[in-house]
């Protein structure tokens, strides 16, 4: 990939220096970063947790509502962070709804693999649709200092499901 030298982005915006960063900041990430889904408190949450990235100050609070038979009925979050961490949390809340805790954790493990390596060897299975929704974040693997931005929400999810309440992506 060559550095941009000026031109017009498909969206109509004139860009230059940063065209090759569209792999990292895909439109879906910018969109979820600007307008995160499920960005609210769940007052009657069954499980909550807090995730911190002390290095950069990113912080999320996660709320889970469970069904009587132990599935995730609703997931929501609040907090502050960069476009990557906000988009990742937003996409996570969408993809874990309806999952059992085990499925959600498995999805998280696969996602961390995706974020760190850019590939997901066993993504063809049961969770392939969900993983496909998360692939826009795979570009972070080229930016080692940003991987933990993408994984913070998933660490926080594990903390909520395990009842440990707090997670850190340091």
């Amino acid at each position: 990939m060559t550095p941009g030298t000026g031109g017009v982005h498909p969206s109509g915006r004139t860009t230059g220096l940063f065209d090759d960063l569209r792999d990292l900041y895909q439109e879906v990430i910018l969109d979820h970063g600007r307008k995160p889904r499920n960005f609210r408190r769940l007052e009657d949450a069954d499980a909550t947790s807090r995730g911190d990235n002390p290095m950069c100050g990113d912080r999320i609070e996660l709320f889970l509502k469970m069904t009587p038979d132990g599935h995730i009925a609703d997931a929501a979050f609040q907090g502050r962070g960069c476009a990557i961490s906000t988009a990742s949390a937003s996409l996570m809340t969408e993809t874990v709804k309806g999952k059992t805790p085990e499925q959600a954790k498995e999805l998280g493990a696969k996602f961390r693999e995706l974020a760190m390596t850019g590939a997901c060897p066993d993504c063809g299975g049961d969770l392939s649709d969900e993983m496909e929704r998360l692939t826009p974040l795979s570009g972070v693997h080229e930016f080692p200092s940003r991987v933990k931005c993408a994984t913070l929400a998933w660490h926080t999810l594990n903390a909520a499901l395990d009842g440990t309440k707090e997670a850190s992506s340091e």
Partner: protein
Amino acid sequence: MDAIPAVTFDVARIRQDFPILSQTHRGRPLVFLDSGASAQKPRAVIEAMVRCMETAYANVHRGAYRLSELATDSYEAARAATARFLNAADPREIVFTRNSTEAMNLVAHSWGRGVMKPGQAVLISELEHHANIVPWQMLRDDKGNELRVCRVTDSGELDMEDLARKLADGKVGLVAVAHMSNVLGTVTPVERIVALAHAHGAKVLLDGSQAAVHRRVDVQAIGCDFYCFTGHKLYGPTGIGVLWARLEHLDRMPPFLGGGDMISSVTFEKTEWAPVPAKFEAGTPPIIEAVGLHAAIDYVTAIGMTAIETHERALVDHAMGRLSEVPGLTLLGRAQDRGGVFAFALDTAHPHDLATLLDRAGIAVRAGRHCAEPLHARFGLENGTTRASFGLYTTKEEVDLLARAVTEAREFFK
């Protein structure tokens, strides 16, 4: 500043002294704007350290042989050069540490616990680096010394009225503040601080980590009691920092770390401390690093601290203008007297996203809270800021490129 000589400051020639600046980064020239975190090294420093290891290296202060004597001479020459650099009255007032963080911890441990009275307070400010906050919190939690915090005004200056108020009851034993903020760029009015503090019976420690790089520092003229800076921000190596303190203080202070080199005699019953500064330099010191620091001091001194300051003042004015033109950019710190550190927030982009974009343009900046979390909280910027910080090799063209890239990045995230 009186009679600034008409100097020719040839930044293009200076840049040739720094091998790393000829690198390209993703096909673009490296624009290094993170010198406030750690500065790049001129060839003179690199070569001095190599020469030391190749020709004159051994442990210091002990070997009755030629090489050890040579190394001891080099190490002590670095101390003398550092004393001259700060205009210290005596080279024995220079204690080598690992960095300025360790220098401040040394004062907090040794002077704070050994000399300061239990009822006395420490007065810091909102603009401090964590290195000038945490050691005093530890002292407070350990010994009960109250910790007071002087406010910072909206323009990013020390609130001198608040400082006076917090000194008024005479209970403050030490005022510990930065000479220059690593976030706001503010240069604090150190002579006034010293006068005020001394009038109320308080000693003064200045964290010169940033200031010593950009200004000529004269500890006798300032009149402070302790001054700290670090080698790696002054174009020298990592692993060496400096504590300057008046001899009368050092003499009264108990040692910080125990070990070899800091004693005059040891039996299992009793140990006698070596005289200063050896008393505070336990174990094998940073010998090669001292040689590197000496070369760095010689390097900036040859260019002239006043010439560096003049160049940077012009650069700061230029940057203030350029960055003010960037839409949606909020600059933190608009002090009257400020140096080349620019922390800012951008309306459409989080600091980390912005730093990633700038990196792609070959521009190295720092994103986050720059070890000054309370200061960012003070300005309501919990997400942190993006910070560009200058060195003597920074050019106006680099500042222009930064402003252009930030403007373009803003559109990217819009």
